[in-house]
């Protein structure tokens, strides 16, 4: 019998405030489960949870954030078979191909986990200013990031967009792939049972068409990833984001090749560089 799954908000698994659910089918049309159909109110609750979790997560040491992300990878490893089965069903690929996707996804989390304590050294600087001042620049997390997860790549794509948000010290509200949400739901169970504090990641199953406009116009969302947004909706989302000068990550119109090595683009996109000055003297 098909299960009915819930959302993941503030470290808990609530039903959609709207009470709605929708059927999730495999690539071959089989009914797999029912997922909660998140509403705009759920977006607001998720943003509030992400905001509440931001001081703790952004204030944690880089070492600690790295440890937590490594732990996520470890817990994912424990659910490898479940992820592979869900990815295979969702994406209609062989179980070998799905396993490869899962392994790549775990590696991706590990890769970003290793970045937490290197971002500052690589993106920051001591500035050799022309005067008797000590000046340095450090990257800091932007805040709450709204992520429209890729529609096609249900796990590798998802962690590729989520991990940099977390590694940089942000908290996130993720709208999962509408048609392929089950690996994301399992990921939320992984997050809940690893050491990620509640509210740091909030996963909403539902449609980008319904949820993205609310995320884009929300004044408490500091950055927005348009990866999984419908192309025809993007200009409108960007215009809504402009009302509060929200940072917008605009990937190409087709999904990136998630198997390619990620660069620093997403870490840069979700960080703000702070420059601090102090006089030098005796």
């Amino acid at each position, binding site marked *: 019998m098909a299960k009915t799954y819930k959302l993941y908000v503030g470290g808990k698994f609530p039903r959609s405030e709207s009470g709605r659910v929708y059927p999730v089918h495999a690539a071959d049309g089989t009914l797999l489960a029912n997922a909660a159909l998140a509403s705009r109110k759920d977006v607001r609750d998720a943003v509030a949870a992400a905001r509440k979790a931001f001081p703790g997560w952004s204030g944690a040491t880089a070492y600690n954030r790295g440890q937590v992300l490594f732990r996520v990878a470890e817990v994912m490893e424990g659910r490898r078979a479940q992820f592979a089965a869900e990815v295979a069903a969702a994406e209609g690929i062989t179980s070998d191909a799905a396993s490869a996707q899962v392994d790549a996804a775990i590696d991706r989390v590990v890769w970003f986990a290793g970045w937490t304590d290197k971002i500052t050294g*690589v*993106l920051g*600087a001591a*500035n*050799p*200013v*022309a*005067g008797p*001042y000590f*000046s340095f*620049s450090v990257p800091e997390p*932007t805040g709450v990031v709204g992520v429209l997860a890729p529609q096609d790549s249900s796990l590798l794509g998802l962690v590729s967009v989520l991990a940099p948000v977390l590694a940089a010290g942000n908290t996130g509200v993720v709208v999962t792939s509408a048609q392929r949400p089950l690996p994301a739901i399992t990921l939320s169970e992984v997050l809940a049972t690893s050491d990620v504090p509640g509210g740091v990641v909030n996963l909403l199953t539902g449609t980008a068409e319904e949820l993205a406009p609310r995320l884009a116009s929300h004044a408490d969302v*500091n950055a927005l990833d348009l990866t999984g947004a419908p192309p025809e909706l*993007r*200009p*409108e*989302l*960007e*215009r809504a*984001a*402009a*009302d*509060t*000068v929200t*940072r917008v990550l*605009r990937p190409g119109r087709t999904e990136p090749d998630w198997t390619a090595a990620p*660069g*620093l*683009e997403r870490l*840069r996109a979700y960080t*703000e*560089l*702070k*420059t*601090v*000055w*102090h*006089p030098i003297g005796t």
Partner: protein
Amino acid sequence: MSFWEYAPAPESASVANLHDRYRMFVDGEFADGSGAPLKSINPATGEPLAEVATAAESDVDTAVRAARNAFERTWGPMPGSERAKYLFRIARLIQERGRELAVLETLDNGKPIKEARDTDIPTAAAHFFHHAGWADKLGYAGYGPDPRPLGVAAGIIPWNFPLLMLAWKIAPALACGNTIVLKPAETTPLTALVFGELCQEAGLPPGVVNVLPGAGDVGARLVAHPDVDKVAFTGSTAVGKEIQRTLAGTGKKLTLELGGKAANIVFDDAPLDQAVEGVVNGIFFNQGQVCCAGSRLLVQESVADELLGKLRARMETLRVGDPLDKNTDVGAINSAEQLARITELVEAGEAEGASRWSSSCPLPERGFFFSPTVFGEVQQSMRIAREEIFGPVLSVLTFRTPDEAISKANNTPYGLSAGVWTEKGSRILWAAQQLRAGVVWANTFNRFDPTAPFGGYQESGFGREGGRAGLEAYLDV
């Protein structure tokens, strides 16, 4: 004249080599624009300084086409080591004509000559020097071994630091291999047009730099031009949001340096005399017409009376008047419109119940001037505590604990800069960490350097200018 007064020490206006008419700079030549000419006003007198050609839509097309050609034919293919030499040459020319540019900037903008001379022009030259060195080292900037330029950049800059903001846009754009079309502010186009002469003198290939004077409509056309690949804007948050909306869906790269409402936090253990100097510099530098101006003074309650006493005494010594006088501390407000905006917000502050105190210095009878002003009994909800005034007006709030200081400082949609005054090192670093602002000055204020990235959090914009980080805005990464 008492013992303590200075005799006037005016700089000669003739040094500015002022012309009656200035023309647009497009494709390496000066040209008449098809727009209606504007009169640039001397804000210190209210009199017209010069007539300036403006760009019509067809001129925007011509300039963008020239920039595209230059990008494809000369500047784009040129090795970075060659581009570097042009930038070094431009930097030298700014230095060599520094006095002329400083006087012209003062005439056009109203800022005190000592600020134009000691800050604007040398820092503009420094930006070209710094970026000259980047042109052949982009592979080391951290964006991969061979980062590519974007193409044609559009720079739109404000009237508060006309030549310096030009340098902040043009130097990195050119260093990264882009060409640029720059729109200077309507009220301060003159030094940007003289910069065209510098480009000619430097032998810069035609079309690499184009300067289109005009009002907001010219900027809007430039932003919306289909053949522009990148937009860099410095100015108001309202216009920045409009530009972000315009570019929605186009995929063009955008960086914004917008407004601010910086808090200058004075703790009870701060060196108060130095703090007063910093607070004065923070809000009265360039008549307070600075996006990162320290317009909110947050002072710990226990030292508030002492600090405010010292502050008022110091403000009484500020000399307001002829910007060309080397003794002048506070010059003219840039335009009648800006003066009206400042006046309106100050009236709102009084109406909302804040207590106003203004320096008793006499103001010149002509021109646009405003007395250095400080408001006490300010509440966070008041307009003068929330809105950017962009004038010599300081709002004072008090706090009791460090946490309260930080929460008040961060209680703004802006996040450009902040100041911290305390002798305690650990507190400085803590406060610097807690403040949500792109620049934090501790025991100093208003320091700028081409090696130090500058830019905002939240509604103060995105992207950085200066340093390695600043190159990202002009590279396809």
